[in-house]
Structures are given as structure tokens and as C-alpha cells.
């Protein structure tokens, strides 16, 4: 477990060794390592295979921009593919495996793709897999799918917990490098509420990776001191391990905080928290990302960015190689050489393109062995540090369609003028690439912002002193040659692919991206985009700013879907609503069904019943013969009060409502403004200015919303007020010939005789000796029926009381299925008929729509297309052969007609097996059905292969005169 590449020094804690596994091999690192630095310390340069060509790949960077070193973390349900080793904090017991190879990493079978490269150029699959056409589905697509992708998901549910949280601040500082720390200190000292977020586990940014000095102390120590000062401020919140992944409208920022990813176990704590940060101002101090140069075979393990090489040496105390060569187009080359020399690492060569030198090729199959210079000279080296200049991290500045602008002096894009409102940028992200400039920019911008917010920055300490060594750069992008030179390592896009894309007409930068996949996938081209643009610019004879950039969109780095879901998973995705009788129903053999968010009893199973039909048939029969009880609390209930309540109801219902007397209930039909039926229910007038409306279960929320719209936006001065009371009342239907006898035992001192309390009567009353209640004589089943409502908290006691009172009558509870059977027998429309596409006329309710008033939907319900001949009409249907069963969804055809749309006569909406009649019955829409009573047509059901002769009858199968419900 030796670490042959470990150096002295650095910021890892040598007193805390950690053990981890890579591809099963046990290795050792230290606390403060990333997986990448620990792998390099152990000499593991080959860490994965490339996406397309399966080329051996190593570690390119030391940060979130990593395109190559993607590994799979963990095993089992928690395994996570495509994790960047460069930002994975090492912990004891970490298990990582490499990705995208068949067979061992060292001997990947699919590396044959590399030899096939001439056939796999940009857009190859658009061209190659065209013929023969039939091969696509059977051969090409399965083959491509099998080869595509990098890591693998377990397919098992994610066992981790994710949380959501909300934060508010005056100033959000994104990035805790020199500019961010100085800005946070400035704003914090002024008293502003500051959030400082950094994706690293150690604050300081490049201060930890370089050998800078600030105020005479090491840069990393200065960062420590700054963090310590910030930690003492109550108005500052530091969020390490937190990525600001998006800048959204009005100062809302999305942040992903990794809470337990760096620990061996989460111990039930949330793994990650997705924060929504409401910031009055935002200051982006996200630093810059180094980029590479393109030259032949520049993708071998051992070819790294120079800044990453310095980070491994200075921060992690790891030598990325024994003999390091340097390729640079700017002054960072010298800095790299100095840092390596200080650690005693041999420098093989410094190749400065500003001197006309260049690296034209490399060798080494599974890791760099040598580089070849322009002169043809080969130099042995196991690491090549490449610096192609720095690209400011402008991503968040573009999340609201801002476009970056090109600055020639630093050969890079910097944030443009169209920043998201409230956002400022400072430091390297703003193009201030020297340390002194970054500190000053952070200080000045923060001072300006907090001043704007009304905070005083009096007597600030002197600006920290730091070097201001300019980083002179002369752009150098790529070496021309016949061999492949990589631009985008993650997607295996080479300079040739870009040239070819341009040649084939995909010369716009957005086309280039789609044609070659440049800048796609997990790294979104952080190291590749500018290089790709430069190569395209050259191919098309334009400048880089003329070529333009693609749009940066959130997220900045990948965010797990689990974090977006948070706790809203499984049963927590949508809460289940339970009606008041739920506990009682569960005790009494109920089988439950989800209806919207509600869980309702569909039927109650009794001993000896072999299937659901037995239970439902019994419930229907017993209700029709004696009495049944059903929980109807899920219906929407809206309390309506005010001097103009009657007028309001008269305008929202299509049928008249002005003359409903106190103590009576009326059926109400609600239209949409386009004239189609929206909803129905009953409304009871409890007092002169007090009504209670019921809506269908499904539309409860929507109807309430529309009523509020009518009240506030259409008739703002009507004196009417609405409260949703759906959850406030438990309501039970008591139906059947013995309903009156049963309720007489429950209701206190109320004459329930037909004269005193007739059909459609309502009243407030008390039950069981003083419990407040409301009683409505309404019927959905067609029986003598009541609905009795009590405050929800009495709902459980009420169902138990009613069942006890009903014992002598053999009262049964009935569920939604029996409810449905009885309403079909009675011919009442429900969800399948009130589907938003049917009219009052089609439902047989056309005469209810009053023409003398201006209610919602009245005018357009009279449109020509909705009133003409040949219209559909809701009818009853029964099989000619009574033993046949009907199915909902079957279409109606005339005998002998072709089964096509031209001959369609309607369709069946609802069916039931009627225990009352002993055969299957159905409701359905039939063309001109009202004139076709007794006619025999066909119920044609090609899905189930059925063609059943059916008779058109009245939809009111059961007690069409309504004698029972009025009795």
C-alpha cells in the first residue's frame, strides 16, 4: 500500500490515512485527498476508457471540469455512475470502478473502435446506418444502444435521502477563491447577510493549488484565516461542498450541497440538500478553467493541464509523473516548472509555443512515455503539463440568455453586458487573472454592492498585498497534422471532426455541437468549448467572436435526479387523502381504490365471498332492499355566503338558482365559458344568505378556483364569499327503503316524514344527542336517501353510530363500485360522461340551461355546432342476449355497417352488471339516441374482439318516475 508518487508537503493530513479500492485493488490515500489525487499518488494513471474509441484515458484536471476521469462509485442500489474522480473527496472504504470497457480496463475489447476510427467520424451514425432500412430496428439500434453510455445504474431504487431547503440573503457569493473570500469578508464586515458557497471541500480555490503569498503568508493560510474570520460572523453562512448550479429569475439560485458524500456512511442523514437561495444580489467569483491545446495523440493518460499538475503537487503532495514535460502558450509554463523543481521533480522539457516550438505527437499505449517535438526530436516524459490559457467561468452569467464577449488580451470570453439582473462578477471569472487584481476586484465589487443595499463599509482594513504578475498569452490552439488531435476528450471529438463538420455544412457553432457532440455530456465541454470554437473559426476563416458560443444552461455541473425529487418520492410524491371513515372501513374488510388523491373503499368483503362481484352485488341488493351507507366526504364542498350569494350562484350555474327557497337543495349544472359541461353537484340553501355547494371529487379544487375568478375578476362588487370546506365535513349517504327509519334513530328531534322533510329538503340539525350536523334529502342511488354531514372530527364516531343504528335493518356499508352500479342503473352522468367534451344537450339536460340569463357558458352553449341535428345523446344500452356482457369503450354501429369512423354512431361510456336486473347494462352516447328507443344496434369492440347486438333504451333503467326517491 505504498504511495510511490507521494511528495512531502501539501494540504492533506498525513496523520489520517484512508483505505480505498479501485477496481478491487486496495489502495491508500490521506484525509484531504480527492480520489484522483489518491489514484495518482498510487501511480494509477489509467482510470477509464473514452466514450467512442475506447482509448485509454487518465486524469486531465483537478476540478469539476474533468472530462476523462469518470468512475462508478459504490456498489448495489447506491452505486453512482459518471462521478468525477477529481472532485470526489476520499473517505475510508470508498469503492470505485472504472467505466466503459468490456473485459478488464487494461484490455478493453471495444478498443477495436479505435482501429475503426476512420469509419466513426463525426455524424457517422447518420450516414452509416441508413441501409438497409429494416436493419435499423433489429440490428443497428440495439447494437448502438449496447455500446453507448458510460457508467451503469443499478436499476434499484435510490436508497439515499435528499432534502430541499430555502435560504435568503443580501449577497450570495459563488466561489471562495481569493476574489470570493475577499468579497465575502467585505460584505460580511459591513453587516450584510452573506452566503458564501464553494463546490470544493476546502475554501481557497487556486490559493490552495498555487504557491502564492498574500500579506507575507502562504495563500492557503490566508484562505484559512479568511474562513476563520467569516466563521465568527453571525451574518455569514459558509456552504462548502456546495455547487451553485443555476441562476434563475429574480435572484433565485439553485444550489446543491453534498452533506454526506464524503463520509463512509450517511447514518440516515440527507445525502444532499437542494437549496433554493433567494439573493438580493449575487456575486459570481467562479474563477477560470484552464484549457488544453490540440495535437496528435494528446489524450493519453499522463497528458494533463498544467494548473492541475500544480494542484496535485502543491495541494495534494502528489507527483503526476517522474519526468514532466511542459507545453505552454503563456507564462504559466514557467510557474509550473518552478513548482515542480521546488519538489525535486525532473523537468523533461519546457515547450513554449511563443518560441515557435510545439509538441506534434506522443507515444505510450496506456500512459504517456514520450513526446515528439516539431523538430522530430523525441523526449522521454511520463507526464505532459499543458497550458493553453484560462477561460473565465462565465456559465452562470449566461443562464438568462446573456452572451459572453471575447477579450483578445487574455484570449478568452468574459461575461457580457447582459448579466442576470442583480448579478455581478469579480476575479478570474471576470477576466481579472492575476491574484492582486482578483482580490481588488472582489473587494471593490462587494463594496459597491453592499453600498447599494444600504450597508456602510467604514474603515476597511488595507487590501491584502499579493503578486500581480501578468500572465502573458499568445493564443496557440492546435498543431496541424494527419493524426487525430483531441479537442473534446469526453465525446472523442477531434480537430478533424470539426473541420469535417464545417465542410459538410454544419459550420454554425450550434450545428457543430449537435453534429459532433462537442461540448455535450457530463462536463459540457468546460475544457473543450473554446478550443473547439478556435478550430472552427480557423476552418471557416472567421474570428472566434464572429464564430460565437453555444448557450450555457443550468445545471453548471450534473445534479442527481434524486436531489430534485427531494423527499417527494413514493407515497410522499403526492399525499394520500383519507376520508373520515377510513379506519372504520379498514377494520371492516374494505378494499381500497385510489380516486384522485383520495383512498376510498371500493367494496367491503364479507366471509364466503369469492370475488369482488359477490361483494358489490350484495351491497347493491341490500341497499335497494333495506339500507346502505356510503362515505361521500370526498365530494368538493364550498361554503358560499353573502347578500348576493343567490345572484352569484345564478351566474355560475346554467340552471336557475334565484328562487331556491331556504331549506331546499337543487341540482346544479356548471358549464365552461365555451358552453361545454364542466361539473355538476347540488347546492343547498341553509339560510337566507348561506349556501353550501358540492362539486365532483375530481373538480373540487378547479371549480373553487373558477368561482374565485368569477367573484374577484368578473363581478368584483357582488357581496359573496367562498370557503372550501371539503375537509371540514364528514358526509355519509344513507340510502334505501329503511333510510328514514335508520336516520330517525340518529337525528335528534326532527320530523323526517315525507311532508315535513320531503325530497330535496335540507336543514341544520343535531345527531346522537347534540352533535352538530346537516341533513340533506338527496339521492344518487335512486332510493329514498339522505346525506348527513358532521364536522370531520366526528366522522369516525358517526359511521360507527350509523352502522349500529342500522343493525336491526341489516344496514350495509357500500363502496364506490356499488355507488357506480346504482348510478348507472339510475342513469346519472359521472366522470365518464362529464369528460369536458360533452354538452348539456348530449347529457339530456339541455332544457336545464336557462336562456333568459347570462350565466357562465350560456351564450356559447347555443353555438350552431352544439345545437344541430344528428347530435349524440346519452342513452341506456342493454344486450339483446341478456347473457352477454358489455364493455365501456365499445363503439356503436348500425347492423351491417362497415366498422369505420364514417359509420360511427357513438360509444359506450359506462357499464355495470346490474344485480337489480340480472344482466349487463350500459350508458353511452348514441347519435340521435332520443329518437331511436327500442332500436337494435351493435356494440363493436375491436380491442376485445366483440360485436354485441344491443338495444337502445332510456338511460333511466331503474325507477324512471323517481317514486322511490320521493317516497
Amino acid at each position, binding site marked *: 500500500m505504498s504511495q510511490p508518487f507521494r511528495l512531502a508537503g501539501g494540504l492533506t493530513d498525513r496523520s489520517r490515512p484512508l483505505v480505498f479500492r479501485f477496481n478491487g485493488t486496495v489502495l491508500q490515500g490521506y484525509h484531504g485527498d480527492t480520489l484522483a489525487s489518491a489514484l495518482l499518488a498510487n501511480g494509477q494513471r489509467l482510470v477509464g476508457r473514452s466514450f467512442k474509441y475506447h482509448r485509454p484515458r487518465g486524469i486531465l484536471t483537478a476540478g469539476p471540469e474533468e472530462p476523462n476521469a469518470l468512475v462508478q462509485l459504490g456498489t448495489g442500489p447506491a452505486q453512482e455512475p459518471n462521478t468525477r474522480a477529481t472532485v470526489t473527496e476520499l473517505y475510508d472504504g470508498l469503492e470505485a470502478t472504472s467505466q466503459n470497457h468490456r473485459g478488464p480496463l487494461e484490455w478493453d475489447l471495444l478498443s477495436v473502435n479505435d482501429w475503426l476510427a476512420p469509419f466513426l467520424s463525426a455524424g457517422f451514425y447518420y450516414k452509416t446506418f441508413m441501409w438497409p432500412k429494416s436493419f435499423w430496428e433489429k440490428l443497428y439500434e440495439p447494437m448502438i444502444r449496447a455500446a453507448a453510455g458510460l457508467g451503469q445504474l443499478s436499476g434499484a431504487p435510490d436508497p439515499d435521502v435528499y432534502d430541499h431547503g430555502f435560504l435568503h440573503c443580501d449577497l450570495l457569493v459563488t466561489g471562495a477563491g481569493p476574489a470570493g473570500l475577499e468579497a465575502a469578508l467585505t460584505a460580511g464586515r459591513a453587516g450584510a447577510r452573506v452566503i458564501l458557497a464553494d463546490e470544493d471541500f476546502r475554501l481557497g480555490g487556486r490559493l490552495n493549488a498555487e504557491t502564492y503569498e498574500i500579506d507575507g503568508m502562504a495563500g492557503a493560510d490566508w484562505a484559512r484565516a479568511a474562513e476563520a474570520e467569516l466563521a465568527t460572523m453571525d451574518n455569514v453562512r459558509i456552504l462548502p461542498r456546495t455547487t451553485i448550479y443555476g441562476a434563475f429569475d*429574480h435572484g433565485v439560485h439553485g444550489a446543491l450541497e453534498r452533506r454526506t458524500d464524503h463520509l463512509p456512511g450517511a447514518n440516515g442523514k440527507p445525502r444532499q440538500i437542494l437549496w433554493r437561495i433567494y439573493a438580493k444580489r449575487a456575486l459570481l467569483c467562479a474563477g477560470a478553467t484552464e484549457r488544453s491545446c490540440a495535437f496528435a495523440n494528446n489524450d493519453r493518460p499522463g497528458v494533463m493541464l498544467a494548473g492541475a499538475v500544480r494542484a496535485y503537487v502543491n495541494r495534494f503532495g502528489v507527483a503526476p509523473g517522474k519526468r514532466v514535460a511542459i507545453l505552454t502558450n503563456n507564462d504559466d509554463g514557467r510557474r509550473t516548472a518552478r513548482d515542480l523543481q521546488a519538489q525535486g521533480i525532473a523537468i523533461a522539457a519546457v515547450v513554449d509555443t511563443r518560441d515557435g516550438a510545439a509538441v506534434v505527437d506522443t507515444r505510450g499505449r496506456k500512459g504517456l512515455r514520450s513526446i515528439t517535438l516539431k523538430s522530430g526530436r523525441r523526449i522521454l516524459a511520463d507526464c505532459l503539463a499543458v497550458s493553453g490559457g484560462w477561460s473565465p467561468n462565465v456559465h452562470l452569467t449566461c443562464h438568462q440568455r446573456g452572451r459572453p464577449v471575447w477579450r483578445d488580451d487574455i484570449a478568452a470570453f468574459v461575461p457580457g453586458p447582459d448579466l442576470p439582473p442583480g448579478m455581478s462578477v469579480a476575479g478570474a471569472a471576470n477576466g481579472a487573472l492575476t491574484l492582486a487584481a482578483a482580490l481588488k476586484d472582489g473587494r471593490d465589487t462587494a463594496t459597491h454592492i453592499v453600498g447599494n443595499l444600504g450597508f456602510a463599509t467604514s474603515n476597511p482594513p488595507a487590501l491584502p498585498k499579493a503578486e500581480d504578475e501578468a500572465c502573458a498569452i499568445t493564443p496557440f490552439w492546435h498543431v496541424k497534422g494527419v493524426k487525430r488531435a483531441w479537442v473534446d476528450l469526453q465525446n472523442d471529438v477531434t480537430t478533424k471532426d470539426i473541420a469535417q463538420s464545417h465542410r459538410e455544412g454544419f459550420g454554425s457553432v450550434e450545428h457543430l455541437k449537435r453534429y459532433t457532440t462537442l461540448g455535450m455530456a457530463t462536463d459540457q465541454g468546460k475544457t473543450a468549448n473554446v478550443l473547439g470554437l478556435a478550430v472552427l473559426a480557423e476552418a471557416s476563416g472567421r474570428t472566434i467572436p464572429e464564430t460565437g458560443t453555444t448557450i450555457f444552461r443550468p445545471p453548471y455541473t450534473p445534479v442527481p435526479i434524486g436531489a430534485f425529487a427531494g423527499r417527494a418520492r413514493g407515497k410522499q410524491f403526492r399525499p394520500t387523502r383519507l376520508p373520515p371513515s377510513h379506519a372504520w372501513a379498514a377494520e371492516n374488510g374494505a378494499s381500497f381504490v385510489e380516486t384522485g388523491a383520495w383512498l376510498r373503499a371500493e367494496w367491503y368483503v364479507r366471509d364466503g365471498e369469492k370475488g369482488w362481484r359477490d361483494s358489490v352485488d350484495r351491497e347493491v341488493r341490500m341497499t335497494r332492499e333495506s339500507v346502505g351507507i356510503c362515505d361521500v366526504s370526498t365530494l368538493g364542498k364550498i361554503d358560499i355566503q353573502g347578500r348576493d350569494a343567490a345572484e352569484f350562484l345564478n351566474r355560475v350555474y346554467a340552471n336557475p338558482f334565484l328562487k331556491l327557497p331556504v331549506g331546499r337543495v337543487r341540482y346544479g349544472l356548471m358549464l365552461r365559458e365555451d358552453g361545454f359541461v364542466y361539473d355538476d353537484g347540488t347546492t343547498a340553501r341553509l339560510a337566507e344568505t348561506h349556501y353550501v355547494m358540492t362539486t365532483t371529487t375530481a373538480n373540487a379544487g378547479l371549480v373553487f*378556483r373558477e368561482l374565485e*375568478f368569477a367573484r374577484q*375578476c*368578473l363581478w*368584483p362588487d357582488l357581496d359573496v364569499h367562498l370557503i372550501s370546506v371539503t375537509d371540514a365535513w364528514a358526509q355519509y349517504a344513507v340510502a334505501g327503503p329503511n333510510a328514514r327509519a335508520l336516520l330517525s334513530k340518529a337525528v335528534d328531534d326532527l320530523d323526517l316524514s315525507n311532508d315535513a322533510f320531503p325530497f330535496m329538503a335540507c336543514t341544520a340539525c343535531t345527531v346522537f344527542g347534540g352533535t352538530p350536523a346537516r341533513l340533506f334529502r338527496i339521492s344518487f342511488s335512486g332510493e329514498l336517501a339522505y346525506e348527513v354531514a358532521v364536522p370531520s372530527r366526528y366522522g369516525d364516531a358517526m359511521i360507527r353510530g350509523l352502522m349500529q343504528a342500522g343493525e336491526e335493518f341489516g344496514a350495509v356499508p357500500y363502496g364506490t363500485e356499488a355507488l357506480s352500479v346504482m348510478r348507472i342503473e339510475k342513469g346519472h352522468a359521472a366522470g365518464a360522461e362529464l369528460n369536458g367534451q360533452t354538452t348539456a344537450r348530449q347529457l339530456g339536460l339541455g332544457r336545464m340551461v336557462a336562456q333568459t340569463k347570462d350565466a357562465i357558458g350560456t*351564450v*356559447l352553449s347555443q353555438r350552431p355546432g352544439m345545437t344541430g341535428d344528428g347530435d349524440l345523446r346519452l342513452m341506456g344500452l342493454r344486450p339483446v342476449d341478456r347473457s352477454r356482457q358489455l364493455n365501456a369503450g365499445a363503439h356503436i354501429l348500425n347492423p351491417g355497417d362497415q366498422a369505420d369512423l364514417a359509420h360511427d354512431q357513438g360509444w359506450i361510456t359506462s357499464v355495470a352488471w346490474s344485480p337489480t336486473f340480472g344482466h349487463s347494462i350500459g350508458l353511452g352516447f348514441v347519435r340521435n339516441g332520443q329518437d331511436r328507443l327500442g332500436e337494435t344496434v351493435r356494440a363493436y369492440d375491436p380491442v376485445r374482439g366483440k360485436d354485441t347486438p344491443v338495444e337502445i333504451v332510456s338511460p333511466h333503467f331503474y325507477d324512471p318516475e323517481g317514486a322511490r326517491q320521493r317516497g
Partner: protein
Amino acid sequence: MIIDHPLLGPRDAAEFVVKGDASLIDRPDGLAEGAGDAFHDYLHLRDNPAGVHRELWYHEHGDRSWLVVTRNTLTHEVLKVELARDAARARGRSR
């Protein structure tokens, strides 16, 4: 997105439901001559500008106020927020 509710102060857009063009306030008189055409226009002819737009938003997860939000659909900048009831009265609606 944040909507500055006239009664409750700044609230997250997630608390609201959007209905669309605020011209829905201008419901025609259903008993007037030519009501059919007027309702046709009212219901089907809405503006959907790229730029400043007046929209109806409902604070469903809040105080149930309907609001008229004047918003730039290109930048999402919220320029003005009023209670829809006040906006309706200003357009001559009453009872």
C-alpha cells in the same frame, strides 16, 4: 420567479397558478346584441406577445387572491402587480 403580492409581499411563483391574458376580465354582456361573436373573441382571441404582457395569476397556495401581473415575457421582469379585483373595477366591472 418572484411575484410581489400587493398584500403579502414577495412570494415565489411556485405558489401561484397562471391563467393567461388579463383580458379575460373583460367578459362581454351575454344578453347584449351580438353576444355570440363577442364571446367568440373573448374566449379565443388572446394576445401572447413577446414582451410586456398583462397576465392573471392565482395565489392558490396562498391567500387565493387573483392578481394581474404585468410581466415582460422575454426577460421575466415583473413590472407591476395588482389585485385583479382592483384591476377589474378599474375596467368598469362591478356587479
